[in-house]
């Protein structure tokens, strides 16, 4: 069993001037840092902040519990969760039997497949966003489309008579 040496680690010998070639440029970072003290510290603070937010929200805004499920209601206005608002708005663009199937199942599946295939769609060697305008612009367009749909559906829901406080 190799004898475990204790005490001071061997000083790192002077690295001879390394020739940076095309493929080993991304081997080392410019400013590496140990994972344990530094990154873990940052992770801890972010996680702690998230924990505090959840606890505050848990007490400030208790998770709601509306009246029990009852199909035979005539005055309840069902709403999707906030993260499906954009899909709800997407539903409105595709009325009618054929279009609902297309807009509701085909499009999300295509979106998922494209999402899975991004590494094979984006073959540009450059990493920084400035060097790959197509992918970044496409990504930005998709994100704005989703966010805009989210707001559109939120405004529509807020302005439904039953939906808003003063309506």
């Amino acid at each position: 069993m190799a004898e475990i040496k204790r005490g001071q680690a061997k000083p790192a010998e002077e690295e001879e001037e390394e020739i940076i070639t095309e493929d080993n440029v991304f081997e080392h970072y410019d400013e590496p840092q140990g994972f344990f003290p530094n990154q873990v510290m940052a992770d801890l603070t972010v996680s702690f902040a998230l924990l505090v937010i959840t606890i505050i929200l848990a007490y400030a805004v208790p998770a709601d519990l509306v009246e029990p499920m009852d199909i035979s209601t005539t005055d309840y206005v069902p709403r999707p969760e906030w993260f499906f608002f954009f899909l709800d708005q997407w539903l409105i663009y595709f009325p009618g039997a054929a279009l609902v199937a297309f807009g509701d199942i085909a499009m999300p599946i295509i979106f998922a497949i494209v999402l899975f295939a991004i590494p094979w769609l984006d073959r540009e060697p450059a990493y920084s966003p400035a060097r790959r305008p197509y992918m970044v612009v496409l990504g930005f367009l998709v994100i704005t489309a989703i966010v805009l749909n989210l707001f559109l559906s939120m405004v529509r829901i807020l302005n439904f008579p039953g939906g808003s406080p003063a309506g």
Partner: protein
Amino acid sequence: MPEELQKDPLTRGQFLYMGAVGTMMGLALTVPPAFFIMDPALKATIFNRSDIPHVWREIGSIFEVPSGEATAFRVTFPQKQTYDSGGPNSRVGSLTETALASWHDGKIPDLVKKRSEGATFSKSEVRTLEKNINVMSNACTHMGCPVRWDSVHHQIVCPCHGGIYTINGMHVGGPPPHGLWRYVFRIREDGIIEVRHKWVQGTPWIV
């Protein structure tokens, strides 16, 4: 920890043996569970057996249906599903739904206007009444949200995505693919509407 890998050759016999035993084990472990999970799907789609037995349930009398409006009647059906299907020490479940009833184009036929509450109708009168009344489910055909009568614009409105139907349940606007689901119903002599958990256009699922 063995020092290096040892790759013995694989004979035909061993390969066939492993293949056969493997497939048998695979089948035994996948086919029954598949049927186990798909049981309700098989019963519902292939054998067309519904969770709700074929019973007629009263929803209300035709005199309660006003003119120019669609009113909601609650109806409760017995439901036999998993632990609610009346085993030795369990009860039969129930499913409450709403049926919207409205006269055709909102006009009460004069047959009903003349008769008072308790009067009885003849066979032919019942047939004409059945032609003139719409008994529809309140689930929107687009996404199943509960539709409601909008007295301002005299139409049936679905609050979720803005589906619009006329008083007869015909689809007018918005994303729904077709008009409201129409119950299979019959009218008794004394004017009581009875409904079965079956629809004219097929199975709407969910409702």
